[in-house]
């Protein structure tokens, strides 16, 4: 038995669009529904069921090893930075130590958050949940809101007016893109909305994808975060030191976001919206072992979207099984960025433009 299905793509909107089209209320969502793009059947490569089942098998060992290594690196770089801070290192050395710490604290948390939101990183459920909460805090990304928005992202990937996780809406907001290399828009926004959630207010747009039963969880987590920030600030005041603020919470989230932001751009940006084929709207990029460790193999993004039950550590094997039915993978991150950045530039004036990925001929 193999998995195989075909889907047809229909565009619900004129190719050119405005940012209003991306609104979940009053955007292009209704037209997408009419065009059959909502909760639709997506193309799946034929992978024998037995092999897919073997790849979907969970274990704790891979993620325990990788998580121990990740937190070990964070602690090591954190200790180096604290040593430099107390020893009075010069500005550049201290800045480099802090950048290494913040990058490890923040950017790999994105892929940990992601894998644990799917529940595929560990076999043991509470381990997924625990790392999900920790990674969410390290990213300053509200765990309840983003768990549900990510489910919608997988249902309606890059469907205009339905997907709440567009990395770049058209026409691109270049200042925001640049600011978010250090999460200067995202993190303050998340903190502001956390305060709103802590007072019990969840927006109408969020209510379109967060079910009512999950609202109390959003409020509880927001209040826990407020308490955590009070503790961080309180410790800084009591110890008369900036170190607690530099080491925990929003500050390292922002300082270390550049790598996450760069890798995040490679997932879908520049590719067409409103197609029911992940081979056309997602990228698979071949990366070296260091980036794949930091990114937990999310560079195999076509494979992940097509078969989200497959854990991160099995994605290279899945890639080998389905690559004959996919566009050729990008051979490096710079190669992908060399295509993405000019596309973003062009989309400032031509919102109908997108990059067409070459599909192999049907057998």
């Amino acid at each position, binding site marked *: 038995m193999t*998995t195989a299905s075909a889907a047809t793509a229909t565009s619900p909107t004129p190719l050119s669009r405005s940012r209003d089209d991306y609104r979940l209320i009053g955007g292009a969502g209704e037209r997408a529904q009419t065009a059959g793009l909502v*909760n639709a059947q997506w193309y799946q490569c034929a992978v024998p069921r037995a092999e897919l089942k073997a790849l*979907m098998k969970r274990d704790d060992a891979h993620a325990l090893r990788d998580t121990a290594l990740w937190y070990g690196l964070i602690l090591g770089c954190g200790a180096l930075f604290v040593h430099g801070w107390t020893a009075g290192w010069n500005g550049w050395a201290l800045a480099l130590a802090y950048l290494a710490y913040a990058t490890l604290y923040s950017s790999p948390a994105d892929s940990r958050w992601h894998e644990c939101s799917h529940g*595929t990183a560990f*076999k043991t*459920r509470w381990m997924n949940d625990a790392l999900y909460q920790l990674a969410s805090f390290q990213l300053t990304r509200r765990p309840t809101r983003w*768990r549900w928005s990510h489910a919608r992202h*997988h249902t309606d990937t890059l469907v205009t007016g339905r997907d709440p996780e567009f990395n770049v809406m058209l026409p691109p907001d270049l200042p925001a893109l640049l600011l978010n290399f250090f999460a200067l828009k995202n993190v303050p926004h998340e903190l502001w909305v956390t305060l709103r959630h802590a007072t019990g207010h969840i927006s109408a747009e969020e209510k379109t994808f967060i079910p009512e039963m999950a609202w109390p969880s959003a409020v509880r987590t927001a209040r826990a975060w407020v308490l955590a920030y009070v503790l961080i600030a309180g410790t800084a005041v009591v110890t008369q030191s900036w170190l607690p603020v530099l080491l925990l919470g929003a500050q390292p989230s922002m300082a270390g976001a550049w790598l996450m932001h760069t890798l995040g751009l490679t997932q879908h940006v520049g590719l067409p919206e409103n197609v029911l084929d992940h081979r056309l709207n997602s990228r698979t990029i071949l990366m070296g072992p260091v980036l794949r460790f930091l990114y937990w193999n999310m560079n195999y993004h076509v494979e992940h979207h097509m078969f989200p039950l497959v854990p991160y550590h099995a994605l290279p094997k899945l890639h080998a099984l389905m690559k004959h039915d996919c566009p050729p993978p990008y051979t490096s991150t710079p190669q992908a960025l060399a295509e993405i950045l000019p596309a973003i530039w062009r989309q400032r004036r031509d919102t109908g433009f997108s990059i067409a990925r070459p599909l192999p001929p049907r057998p």
Partner: protein
Amino acid sequence: MNDWIDVCPFDDIDDEDVMRFDHAGKTYAVYRCGDQVYATDGLCTHEKIHLADGLVMDHVIECPKHNGRFNIRDGRALGAPVCVNLRTWPARVHEGRVQIQLEAVGLHG
């Protein structure tokens, strides 16, 4: 007593696996865990995805699209992103064949 409906030979479903079964215009998921068989509605209560493409682990079916999980013995939704329980149906192995009873009211859900 309602009639039992024949699904397939017992050996057609691997251990810890699930098979899709369509009958009278509806779709069901039939599971095997060891010597036991179970049956539920075939579509996830979250986004109507076929559960037969999912993963069975320790009496839990995981939806292939969003990883929502249900206990296949009683249909309980086990957490986000699924909130609504899955309807279950009586299932048995009779003379080497899997059978389910659909006319009866679902056990749960």
